[in-house]
């Protein structure tokens, strides 16, 4: 199966880096959509089917925490698999985010950390999530 992924980060460089890391992760990807803030992310969610969202926390216009609240309050998207990809380290804030049923990948992250967290939140096995071109050993050439 392939995953459609939404990457939400106000940094174009970080979005590109996450997209690259996803492509190296061995996970079979469908479409990868991007948004620079929460408002854009809600628009993408409204326009496309998304299996997994990777959210930054600190963003202008609408930050990741508010976006996450909107997603969980929505009947349509409340079950969406979400990973927070952020520098956020405050126990207080992380606890609030985890209460929404998300996993957290801390920047800077490795491809292995991102892949393992994706498998965790999607419930996919490595074999089910792997694409044909990826190494089956689980190693990365990064």
């Amino acid at each position, binding site marked *: 199966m392939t995953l459609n992924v939404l990457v939400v980060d*106000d*940094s*174009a*460089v*970080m979005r*590109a*880096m996450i997209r*690259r890391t996803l492509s190296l992760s061995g996970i079979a990807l469908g479409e990868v959509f991007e948004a620079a803030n929460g408002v854009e992310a809600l628009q993408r969610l409204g326009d496309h089917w998304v299996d997994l969202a990777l959210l930054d926390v*600190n963003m*202008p216009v609408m930050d990741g925490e508010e976006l996450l609240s909107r997603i969980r309050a929505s009947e349509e998207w409340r079950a969406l698999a979400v990973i927070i990809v*952020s*520098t*956020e*380290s*405050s*126990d*207080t*804030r992380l606890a609030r985010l985890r209460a929404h049923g998300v996993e957290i990948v801390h*920047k*800077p*992250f*490795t491809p292995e950390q991102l892949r393992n967290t994706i498998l965790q939140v999607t419930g996919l096995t490595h074999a089910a999530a792997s694409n044909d071109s990826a190494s089956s050993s689980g190693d990365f050439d990064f």
Partner: protein
Amino acid sequence: MQQPATTALLRAATSTFESLVLLFPEPLAIEGAEFLPIAAAVDVAYGGAQTGRVAVAVTAGVLPALAENMLGAAAAPDGQLQRDALGELANVVTGNVLPLVHGAAAVFRLAAPVAAIPGPFHPRAGERQVAMVRLQMDEGEALLALFEQDGGAAPDDSGAGAARVAAAAA
């Protein structure tokens, strides 16, 4: 556990350079140093449990390497992408150093990185420099400093010789 500010900044900076941009720096002495010309610098301001900023400056060889490594580009990305990469690196350093200095319970909000021109290593009015580190890697050097507003909780070990560094880095 809170760490002295310079140790925390060194740890956050080294980890970020290694993991985010695949550059492997070694710390250099600041006292008596002669610095290479700075190619670009950014500030990341923050507020919350404390107010301040992290400044990051790099020499010419480091700037394109950041973007190349982050994006996996075969050739150096354009100047704007290079500066954006520096900004993202500074953002990650800031997010990692603050809990080391102020504890994991403290909540901060980070602003978007902004270009720091001219040199970012002069404390501004109402600020004090609480940490500075200098890193060397194959591609060149980086300088990082943590400034906080006077009147807040004071991390220790503000760097002696900071004025000399500031003058050299400007």
